């Protein structure tokens, strides 16, 4: 109720695709001061590795424990989508 999860369905789709292709979970978060608050995405906690935090624009960020393992073009796809949210 009242939360914005429903508007991030395209991120859910993309994160599911990334998970399927590479077995890597990515999460979209809203950055509010110290708080990186979960909004959408696929889990990757089974890796238990330290989370990599990537700030995108004023409001958002992407978190993934295996970010570095993703091919650059996939990273760019993800960041481009999140940038669109930030520009709304």
């Amino acid at each position: 109720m009242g939360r914005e999860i429903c508007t991030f369905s395209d991120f859910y789709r993309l994160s599911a695709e990334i998970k399927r292709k590479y077995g890597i979970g990515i999460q979209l978060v809203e950055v509010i001061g110290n708080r990186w608050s979960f909004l959408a995405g696929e889990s990757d906690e089974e890796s238990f590795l330290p989370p990599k935090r990537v700030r995108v624009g004023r409001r958002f960020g992407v978190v993934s424990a295996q970010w570095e393992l993703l091919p650059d073009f996939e990273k760019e796809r993800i960041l481009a989508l999140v940038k669109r949210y930030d520009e709304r």
Partner: protein
Amino acid sequence: MTLSVKERDWMSRVIKEDEIRRYMQGDTDFIDDEEIWSKLLSNRNPDRKWIEDILQKSLAVETLTPDETAALLNVEDPELWDEMFRVAGEVKKKVYDNRIVTFAPLYCSNYCVNNCLYCGFRRENLKEKRRRLTLEEVKEEVSVLAGEIGHKRLIVVYGEHPLSDARYIADTIEAIYSVKVPTRNGLGQIRRVNVNAAPMSIEDLRMLRDVGIGTYQVFQETYNHDLYAKVHPKGTIKHDYRWRLYCMHRALEAGIDDVAIGVLFGLYDWRFEVMGLLYHARELERQFDGIGPHTISFPRLMPAAEAPFVQETRYKVSDEDFKKIITVLRLAVPYTGLILTARERAEVRREVMPLGITQTDASTKIGIGAYSDGSENQEIDRQQFIIGDPRSLDEVIRELAEMGYITSFCTAGYRCGRTGDRIMKLLRSGKEGKFCKLNAILTFREWLDDFASEETKKVGEKVIESEIEEVKAGIPDNYPQAVFDELLKYYERIKNGERDLYF
């Protein structure tokens, strides 16, 4: 004390009826006093086999139903209670591992427009010395907390008053996060600011969210409608039961996805109140995609200045019943954090810690400005109540270590997206506990190097050693080898002076 025109005007604007009604189904709220009593009555003399089945459900980290919770509350067999105490500890270990998180309360203002009959801050208590910290004074308090004691997490407390409105609270949160103090090996700072403040509107809660609040905590005090009306006199904001009852709904709608509830035990029947907390947790789960309370608190009524109800109440909770409260809460809402405070005497804290406690405070001072002014004694005329365990963080940590617990200063979760429904899933699946263990090792290492006395360091080293061994022994079932390797790398970096590394 008469309210000023300005105070009255402010009070008239606080409650927004539509921000209560929008969550209600019809004209009733989700606490039905009669239903709670009926559940407690109809589940008397529960069958032992049923209780054993309920315990299995708790071990599977599933929220119990009202009938199941009422059954647990009705157990009379001491042997069965012993079994429940044991399973409660097991549930905690499964969800949160072996760690206890520590924090400190920071009281910023004791001005209050309310007049609660059990509280030292009540506006008719003319003996209370009123004070609101300036932002500079807040920073001085934090310098002691983060620079000398070594806390990383605070619960900041405010009376309900225009002088401590949402704007002031937001400013203090920002002030707290801004403080960085030199320690033995780097900089000390508060990494998570939780807030205990009066119910607010969605707009005000967004203001707190925007400055990076950790958890928003509001206690219902009592879930019994009639008693609530009696101890929170008419003409005060707090008299409105439903404004308070639905404040976590508003917080979640405002985007604060870590919320905390609690009861002041001793106002009313403790079994009823445990049921109230369960109903509250289930209501939040139902309306917000499974997000329940991040923590539950269960303070017991303590002596307070000019607070007549403290002497009057016939519901004071014995130490034995206090153990039962904690145990049933742990079993009924297995994923939630349980906070034990320094209100309780040291011997009580020792006794109940194994029942599923996840957080506790230490080096606690609750006088306004009491950390930085060096006062050692408790002063009833500037405190909300009297605390039972004034021991230092170093002493409490040493004792926890001697009991086999590792103290954790972890604040990682809310800084990397493990919040809201995601953290709930992690807690329910037992995965969060694995992060807890890793982060406890790293943050305890930091604290031992930066703040511990030699005596505490000695005991702490043994705990760290044993925790690292446990991680190693958990390969590959609990942790991949790569995680253990990464843990050791991080651990070395922290030993060499790096700070704030986490999983």
